[in-house]
């Protein structure tokens, strides 16, 4: 009697298959996690083009590092840890770039328009979140938008659970009045 090899399912199984050279398995992982990576990067970087760069870099780096992935931790946490670092690095680089461009009227006139936003209310919400300090913004996004628990957030952000709870609370404190205005409360 023969037994067919049973492949593990889910992210961890796909990551294991991808590490063994199964690019189709990695494509499934990309398709599954791309939307959450995009919305996180878009809000952290506040620029659609930079977000696309960060996300592509993240998936490529993860692909090249699959052999080092420890399947005892969730794939999403491992992936987001890369993404968070890419966003932080790009934000720093952009800050320098922006300072250089501030006194360049030609560059400002020719700058690409930001990505179109679907609604006025959505625009207002995005502005409110974008104005949060980066540490508060990343905590709010992971907690509320990606619906992660604090333990997973701690793995990704490298902060303690108590520190992250405080960041989420401060983010909510800052957003509360803005959202009441937006939702006419």
């Amino acid at each position, binding site marked *: 009697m023969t037994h067919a090899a049973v492949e593990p399912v889910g992210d961890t199984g796909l990551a294991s298959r991808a590490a063994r050279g199964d*690019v189709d398995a990695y494509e499934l992982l*990309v398709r599954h996690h791309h939307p959450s990576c995009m*919305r996180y990067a878009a809000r952290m970087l506040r620029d659609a083009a930079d977000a696309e760069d960060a996300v592509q870099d993240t998936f490529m780096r993860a692909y*090249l590092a699959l052999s080092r992935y420890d399947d005892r931790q969730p794939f999403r946490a491992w992936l987001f840890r890369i993404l968070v670092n890419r966003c932080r690095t790009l934000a720093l680089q952009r800050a320098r770039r922006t300072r250089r461009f501030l006194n360049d009227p030609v560059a400002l006139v020719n700058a690409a328009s930001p990505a179109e936003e679907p609604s006025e209310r*959505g625009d207002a919400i995005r502005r409110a979140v974008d104005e949060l300090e980066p540490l508060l913004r990343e905590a709010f996004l992971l907690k509320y938008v990606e619906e992660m628990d604090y333990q997973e957030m701690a793995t990704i952000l490298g902060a303690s659970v108590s520190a992250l709870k405080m960041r989420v609370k401060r983010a909510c404190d800052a957003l509360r009045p803005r*959202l009441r205005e937006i939702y006419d409360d």
Partner: protein
Amino acid sequence: MTDDRDDRDERNFQRAAAELRTPSARDDAALDDVLVAIRGEAASRFASDDAGDPTGDWEHARLRRRSRRRGAVWLVAGLAAAVAFAAGLGVGGFAGWRLRGESYRAAMEDLGMRRVPPVVPANVSAGALGVRQPVQFMLVAPAASRVALVGEFNDWDPIATPMARAPGGAWHVALPLADGRHVYAFVVDGSAWVPDPQAPLAPERWFGSRNSVMLVGGGRTQ
């Protein structure tokens, strides 16, 4: 009362989070970019079985992305030039494009094609050439380790049509193409998409990148 307000605030946070989950119109194209880059990387690994430092390939993917989305010019190390011509046909004079000067002559000599008649781009007479004529593509890219031709004719598959390297760094491949308009590009080192610098750019974009356009059998490129 306070509980009501807390509930309403919590509901507001959830509604805001739901709004932030709305996909952007650009997400599908961005996903395509990622998948193409990953497939290119996987193909190059498979093709070369290269166990060396992978950061070089990743760097190409990153550069490709920048070049497409920022409109920057991606430079293949060394001279990059390309030409399409109908092999073995002595048709001269055309209104399209061709390589000129020493670069072209040197590349042709490297390819051992000194006897090939004058270069003819795609817009040669259809009647004289038949329906599916071999078209030679060439890219001079001495620093590249692999180059492939992609286009509508091979479903933009970076594995389907690898190009051969001749001494001097000229990469070439001949492909029978039907008469008509063809959009194409070169994929250098598995991930960097390079339009033909000697050919017109196609107005349409695939995965956000600019490609080149050629005509086989006459007509307009635009």
